[in-house]
């Protein structure tokens, strides 16, 4: 079971990391963000700002848009087995659907994380050029792990499974709408998940890294019990809640695939 999970993970990683659209969308969005950030963006943080705050700010900035690209490119990873005609073969192999789904999930998350991590490391190199602080690289990895990666893992679970129920193009439209509503629409304007622990943009972990409220974390609004004061505990709770939520669609993936294959 474990070796089959590892096999699916390894080959899913290989296929996903070779996907040109993953690199084009990540690099394109990262360049757009880096160039178009306003005066309050991390490029304009004063000298002497801590490396944790610098990289936390960058991670949050990238986390605003990069997951949209991730969601788009991940939306076909499970349904494509049916589209290209590999689903029957996979169903005929002595590998349980759980191992297939878990392997595909882990492999595609890992592959999608590679350009995300590289973007942050390249950014750290740019910051290092004029701040001269080597710890920027360490904080880049840390910021990636707590700000960008949990959101990616959350997005990936839904992006893999939802297209088994609705079409991939429809999912992409709905996902883009959700992303802006649930992450960036200020809670003062409309009831939204923005600023709650369930915000996959990484608002709480970024606030913890930066030592101040990063975006909307904890702002009063709808579902007030999900809006504690930002801090280390709240950041950890946010990451755990996102992981739990991500596991929900994955639990349904096996039966959904089986139903699709047997129809």
């Amino acid at each position, binding site marked *: 079971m474990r*070796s089959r999970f590892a096999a699916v993970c390894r080959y899913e990683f290989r296929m996903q990391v*070779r996907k040109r659209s993953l690199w084009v969308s990540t690099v394109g969005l990262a360049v757009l963000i880096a160039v178009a950030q306003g005066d309050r963006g991390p490029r304009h943080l004063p000298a002497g700002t801590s490396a944790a705050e610098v990289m936390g700010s960058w991670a949050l900035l990238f986390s605003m848009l990069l997951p949209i690209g991730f969601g788009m490119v991940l939306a076909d990873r499970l349904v494509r087995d049916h589209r*290209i005609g*590999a689903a029957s073969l996979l169903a005929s192999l002595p590998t349980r659907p759980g191992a297939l789904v878990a392997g595909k999930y882990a492999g595609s998350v890992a592959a999608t994380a590679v350009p995300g991590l590289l973007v942050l490391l390249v950014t750290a190199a740019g910051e290092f050029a004029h701040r001269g602080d080597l710890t920027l690289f360490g904080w880049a990895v840390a910021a990636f792990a707590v700000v960008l990666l949990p959101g990616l893992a959350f997005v990936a679970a839904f992006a893999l499974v939802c297209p088994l129920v609705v079409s991939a193009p429809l999912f992409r439209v709905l996902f883009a709408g959700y992303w802006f509503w649930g992450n960036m629409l200020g809670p003062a304007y409309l009831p939204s998940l923005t600023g709650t622990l369930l915000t996959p943009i990484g608002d709480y972990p970024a606030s913890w890294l930066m030592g101040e409220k990063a975006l909307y974390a904890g702002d009063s609004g709808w579902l007030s019990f999900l809006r504690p004061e930002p801090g280390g505990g709240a950041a950890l709770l946010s990451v755990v809640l996102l992981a739990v939520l991500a596991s929900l669609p994955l639990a349904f993936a096996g039966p959904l695939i089986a139903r699709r294959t047997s129809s």
Partner: protein
Amino acid sequence: MDIMISGLRRRFGRVEALRGVDLEVPGGMFGLLGTNGAGKTTLMRILAGVLSPTGGRVLVGGHDLTTRAGRLAVQRRLGYLPQDLGLYPDLTTQEFLDYIGLLKGLDDDTARRRQIGELLDMVGLADVAGRRLKGFSGGMRRRVGIAQALLGDPALVVVDEPTAGLDPEERIRFRTLLAGIAGHRTVLLSTHIVEDVAQTCQEAAVMAAGRVVFTGPVTGIIDRAQGATWEVVTQGPPPATGVVVSAVGRPGGTHYRVVSPTRPDPAAVPVQPSLEEGYVALMREAVPS
């Protein structure tokens, strides 16, 4: 690995694809003929453990395919080449086979790689082992398909319409390949191309409208058209009665071969039937128009 099927039914919503199939498949190469929509692919998918039956019983090597444990036991000894198999375009031939080998449980790296090398030699793809599958032709893709099916040296190989859409040269090559692997295992070849069965199988079954309408030696199919196959040479229109199986234009007129229980034309002469004509006679009996 023998297969015993009794009263097998499979329904998709209101459509009953299999309506009580009874069939025994001994070892060796076995052909399954039938028109499109006869239920062959549904039967193949059930044998591969991809679909569960709605009713009836299927025993493969003594394992009951209506149970999860039985399906898993059969899948451990199965090679399956589905109709229209899709290959991952981003992987090379070698990587694809390695992936499927791992999913089949071939965990010994050295043994798996050696077997992949042997299979690539066998199907004539050793030269393109490192090439991505993206640009492969239909024939090459089927050969990758049969190579993955043979990984793990399965006791039962199920191939569904493997030669459809291939050019004649590739079809012959593929048929030869299939016949060569049947030595010590059961190979179930599902096809609507009569010639494929004629060239590779001694035993066959014919399906029509979700049922098995014939099972036995391939020569038994030919016998169905004995005394009912005619040749008519005419410069006029084809005979009005019977089924015209072939028409060859020659200087003296067009030579028609016709399957008909009665003489289709006063000038018709009885001829020795082929497998295709036997198949046509059988289908006329099974599904009268």
